[in-house]
């Protein structure tokens, strides 16, 4: 028994190592594609850095080029970029003249708070609609609601929320970003489309699980409806929702750009926008790497949760 457990543990560790290798590959791929793409930008990076109307002599430009290592062959630049990436050094911002990691670290907490609350809202709303809208009529009403919520752009939802709850009813502050109260509306704007999608997947999963023979046999055994839901069908439905939720959480950074702009909140989303408008390439590349890393890590976490929810997958550790 003991040795069997050990073997299982060993397999799980091997599996995890394999997945972490995958994470590294995705980060490397994203860094490489990003690096190549940014090399295609028309114009001299130094001119981009200094702005169009700058009056800088060619000698100074050469010095700057030297300073940033832009005179070296592209391959050398790429290798040194990768080398620094390994030590978590993302380079220096053209515009802010500070390490990209500092720029990101400064903005990250605000966006993390926002996305964490958004995820909590989304899951709570999705669970509520999946658990309570079980009847035929309620289901239909909820599915229309889901369609509307999914189809409304997050920035517009945000504006409507401000108009109604901040300006109209005065329940929330209009132009404040530091209090916990000010976090509610932006998190809700970010959460609603995600909630709509997860709720739809969850309800589909519950419906199809309830049609399966095992559901009938559980009920025939005399178990109550809530026991069937809590112990059996919810588990089945949860696996699909997990994949989607993972993907959606990864995509929240894209939504954060819009929502942070709508609510004039500081954060990574606005830093991204700033970097794109200023053409601050090191920051852009840093955010590319961060987004890819986030996505890859979330995928692994989802896979681990998958095994927790679905025991059938645990013994297939060696197979996958």
């Amino acid at each position, binding site marked *: 028994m003991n040795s069997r457990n050990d073997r299982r543990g060993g397999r799980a560790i091997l599996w995890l190592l394999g997945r972490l290798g995958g994470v590294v590959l995705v980060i490397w791929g994203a860094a490489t594609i990003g690096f190549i793409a940014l090399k295609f930008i028309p114009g001299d990076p130094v001119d981009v850095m200094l702005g169009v109307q700058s009056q800088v002599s060619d000698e100074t430009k050469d010095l700057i080029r030297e300073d940033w290592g832009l005179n070296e062959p592209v391959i050398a630049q790429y290798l040194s970029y990768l080398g620094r990436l390994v030590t978590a050094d993302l380079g220096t911002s053209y515009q802010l003249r500070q390490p990209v990691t500092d720029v990101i670290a400064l903005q990250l907490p605000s966006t993390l708070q926002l996305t964490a609350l958004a995820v909590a809202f989304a899951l709570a709303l999705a669970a509520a609609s999946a658990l309570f809208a079980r009847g035929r009529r309620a289901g239909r009403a909820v599915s229309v609601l889901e369609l509307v919520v999914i189809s409304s752009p997050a920035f517009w939802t945000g504006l409507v929320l401000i108009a109604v709850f901040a300006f109209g009813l005065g329940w929330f502050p209009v132009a404040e970003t530091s209090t916990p109260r000010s976090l509610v509306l932006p998190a809700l704007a970010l959460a609603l*489309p995600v909630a709509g999608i997860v709720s739809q997947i969850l309800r589909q999963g519950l419906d199809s699980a309830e049609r399966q023979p095992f559901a009938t046999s559980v009920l025939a055994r005399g178990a109550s409806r809530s026991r069937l839901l809590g112990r059996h069908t919810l588990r089945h439905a949860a696996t699909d929702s997990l994949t989607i939720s993972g993907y*959606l959480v990864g995509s929240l*950074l894209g939504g954060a750009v819009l929502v942070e702009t709508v609510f004039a909140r500081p954060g990574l989303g606005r830093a991204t926008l700033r970097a794109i408008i200023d053409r601050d390439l090191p920051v*852009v590349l840093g955010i590319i790497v961060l987004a890819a890393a986030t*996505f890859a890590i979330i995928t692994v976490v989802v896979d681990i949760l998958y095994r927790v929810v679905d025991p059938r997958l645990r013994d297939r550790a060696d197979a996958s």
Partner: protein
Amino acid sequence: MTLAITTRLARGRRPRWGGVIVASVVLAVLILAAIIPGLFTPADPLQTEIANALLPPSFAHPFGTDQSGRDVFARVVYGTQHSLVIGFTATLIALVAGLVIGTLSGIAPRGVDTVISRVIDVLMAFPEFLLALLIIAILGPGESSLIVAIAIASTPVYARVSRVQTLVVRRSGFVRAAKILGVPPLLTVVRHVVPNTLGPLLVMATIGFGTAIASAAGLSFLGLGPTPPTPEWGLILSEGRNFLGTAWWIAVFPGLAVTATVISATVVGRRLLARRAGWAQ
């Protein structure tokens, strides 16, 4: 939301006929408004009239007026053209690029196929909207780079689907028959493989059209697309943001137009998808 997910959601859910008819009518009206905007409103979307600034919705101005007294209804109607053209062009480019890349990947030798698939995987690790933003960082802001950015950002999904379809069709009896009959490989691809992959892609594109319009509105809301005073939905919204406390109608109505377009495209797309699923069974 992203195309990959909306397409996936469509499985197993067949929209009711009533909804499909309403959605088709909305799409038809939008297309009409894009072609002949003058049919819907006599007002000029660029005509400023300071005396009439920030008027609430009324009979004369159904959607009210903005800070320079321009008719918001006229701006939304004329904005249809911009949004629809951006959405349509971006979707078309993504569809064609995805079809070409996916088909080539599907018939290419294994090594090439693996490399292309991995690149697609990495690109799909980025949320579509973020990817479009990053592409604009390379191309610089503007209406045409907006189209290209949205097109490139949604290409991986189309490429992946058409690759899978190609792999399936390649193994089918009629392609093998064509090979035995001595039909040149290129002709086989064009005559037999592509027509079979095109169907699912076109259905995806119906839903993708709505997604593309929403992304376009988002990007131009951020100021990365067309420049003022162009009547474009995202741009009108961003102008309305500053007057939210006093004149909610400037921001609310163009957003409603975006939402209505996305819903209609999704409903029609889901219906088509359900029909395809029905054929398959």
